[in-house]
């Protein structure tokens, strides 16, 4: 056949509509708010869409990679007007909990950072027709192409990047040529902001003015200081609790303290963070006290370190990579709610809130990226992870002494080991003592064992506000076997009267039954307290041990020589 006569496109079949599978959901509206706090920008983006399908769905949205130095630190999802606040959790645990929650039919939200720092959001449990709003807050440094000018590029769509295509199909971003309404507002006190890169000529943004933007092209903002203004920022608040100190001006000494106005600090406090970052322009140093005293836990039970967390975010966003801190990086990420490869933002709803059906996964489409000449602007994130677990750079000579930065993880880990092994040793000792194999006092051993197990249980107590807390009173049933063994056994009457009580036929079978109940009850109760299983397991073991000793004592009393 002559190839010139081949008039049919051989790939046409691949683009047939019926091959598209489940059509993606489309965004209805995007609102971007930029607050310029030079040298940083706080960016709030609200994306809205509607579940146009007739069933319960899981919406999956993959976003463009985070910009260099960008830190995403808050996510609120509103479904049908109800706001769901996502909390920071270790990434692996958050993903497992999310998948389990979807299988259980709960509402579940997970915002995680995939390979190449691509953020991906999964919202499961969106009812048919429900309107959804996704609000994210992030902070990032402004680019400084020259000392008198700062720039900011915001990408709302995904480009054809090889990194994105290496993702599994479920995680890969998808785009649509369909357009939706999008607007931008910028507030920048003492600065002039110009928007460019849009289908209209460059224009100067007026304060609180909302301008329409095209999501398929990056938004490019140029910031210049007005008369007498600056693009740098310096704050000094170390003279009050929760204070912090920072400056973006390179090469300027900022390591001050009320007691050390000359700039050298010698402190033996362990609740301060000290940091120093060598830059091409010189060493930048920061110091801030961690205000844990008097701070109440937030809704998720986490102890907030705000307002210091704001300082940490500011440091990280400005390129002040964390260096020396008494908190480990993971703890700071969790407390400050920062999205990271090791920290995801998640929400798990209660059981029974949604209809009993499997949510159908729908991808949420971004606007298709237009081919644009980006000139020499960096498109790829270089290394946006602000809290890497890297060894700190060499300490400058006038940094605080090493004893000011003890780690928290070591003692906590060794305490955990101790709390696990000590009860086991105690119970072996108590067994030996009860059968007189070892000459040890039984009652002190069992009392210490009980106290340690209660401390152990407290370690696994779910955070305040967790839905499972409402079910924890049910665990009181765990004590029933040994309490019943005491009440219906011979020990108490013998202790009170000094004589052996009348022995009924049912007493010995009852004692064995109570021992069996002490085994079965924890198994049954653990199943109904998901999220507090380790807590229930520890209490179950404690009560089983108590039941074992009391039942054994009762049976030996009832049937001497048995």
């Amino acid at each position, binding site marked *: 056949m002559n190839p010139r006569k081949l008039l049919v496109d051989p790939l046409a079949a691949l683009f047939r509509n019926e091959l598209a599978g489940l059509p993606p959901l489309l965004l209805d509206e995007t609102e971007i708010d930029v607050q310029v706090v030079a040298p940083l920008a706080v960016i709030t983006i609200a994306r809205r869409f509607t579940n146009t399908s007739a069933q319960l769905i*899981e919406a*999956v949205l993959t976003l463009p990679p985070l910009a260099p130095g960008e830190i995403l630190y808050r996510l609120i999802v509103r479904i049908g007007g109800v706001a769901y606040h996502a909390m920071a959790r270790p990434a692996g645990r958050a993903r497992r909990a999310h998948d389990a929650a979807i299988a259980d039919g709960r509402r579940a939200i997970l915002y995680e950072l995939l390979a190449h720092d691509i953020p991906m959001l999964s919202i499961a449990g969106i009812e048919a027709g429900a309107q959804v709003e996704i609000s994210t807050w992030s902070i990032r440094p402004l680019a400084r192409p020259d000392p008198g000018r700062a720039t900011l590029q915001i990408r709302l769509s995904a480009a054809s990047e090889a990194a994105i295509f290496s993702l599994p*199909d*479920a995680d890969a971003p998808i785009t649509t040529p369909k357009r939706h309404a999008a607007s931008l507002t910028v507030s920048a006190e003492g600065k002039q902001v110009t928007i460019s890169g849009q289908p209209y000529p460059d224009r100067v943004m007026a304060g609180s003015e909302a301008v329409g933007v095209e999501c398929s092209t990056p938004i490019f903002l140029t910031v210049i200081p007005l008369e007498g203004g600056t693009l740098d920022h310096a704050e000094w608040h170390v003279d009050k609790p929760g204070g912090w100190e920072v400056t973006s001006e390179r090469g300027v000494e900022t390591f001050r303290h009320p007691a050390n106005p000359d700039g050298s600090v010698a402190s033996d406090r362990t609740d301060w963070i000290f940091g120093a970052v060598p830059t091409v322009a010189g060493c930048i140093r920061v110091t801030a006290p961690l205000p844990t005293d008097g701070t109440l836990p937030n809704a998720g039970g986490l102890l907030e370190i705000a307002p210091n967390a704001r300082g940490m975010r500011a440091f990280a966003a400005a390129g002040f990579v964390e260096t020396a801190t008494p908190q480990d990086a993971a703890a700071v990420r969790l407390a400050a709610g920062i999205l990271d490869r090791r920290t995801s933002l998640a929400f798990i709803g209660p059981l029974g809130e949604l209809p009993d059906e499997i949510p159908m996964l729908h991808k949420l489409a971004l606007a298709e990226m237009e081919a644009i000449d980006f000139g020499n602007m960096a498109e790829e994130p270089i290394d946006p992870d602000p809290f890497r677990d890297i060894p700190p750079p060499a300490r400058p000579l006038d940094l605080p002494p090493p004893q000011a930065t003890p780690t928290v993880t070591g003692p906590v880990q060794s305490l955990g080991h101790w709390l696990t092994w000590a009860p086991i040793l105690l119970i072996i000792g108590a067994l030996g003592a009860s059968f007189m194999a070892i000459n040890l006092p039984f009652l002190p051993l069992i009392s210490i064992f009980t106290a340690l197990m209660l401390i152990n249980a407290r370690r696994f107590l779910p955070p305040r506000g967790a839905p499972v807390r409402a079910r924890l009173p049910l665990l009181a049933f765990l004590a029933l076997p040994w309490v019943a063994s005491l009440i219906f056994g011979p020990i108490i009457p013998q202790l009170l009267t000094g004589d052996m009580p009348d022995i009924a036929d049912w007493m010995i079978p009852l004692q064995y039954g109570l021992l069996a109940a002490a085994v079965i009850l924890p198994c049954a109760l653990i199943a109904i307290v998901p999220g507090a299983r380790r807590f229930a397991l520890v209490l179950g073991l404690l009560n089983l041990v108590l039941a074992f000793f009391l039942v054994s004592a009762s049976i030996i009393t009832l049937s001497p020589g048995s």
Partner: protein
Amino acid sequence: MTSLKFDDLVRTTGTTPRQIRYLISQGFVPPPTGGRTYAAYSGAHVAAIRRYDRLRSLGFPPAAIRLLLGAREGIPVPIVAGLTLVIDPDLIGSGGDVAAVAALGAQKIEQLLSEAAPDEPA
């Protein structure tokens, strides 16, 4: 294969839970039996996931996989220049006596490509 729970399916196929949910929603894998509470999966689900993974690893985009799975002609898999294996989609990832089938295929290819005529002594 006996009935599998979702976690078993994830473990058996080595695929992420989200990817499985995606494949079900896109129709590449059938939904579970038993509804949400008693969701059960079988060998058919395992085979469907493996088939999709194999075809993706061969470079077929999802739309092409949909087209190939719906076609009657089988899926063409190039082996070398001038030689293409056409395989029934249902066989991909289904397991079975793969070694015996491969030996038969090798024998057939040797028979067809050998310089000596079939009736001549080798």
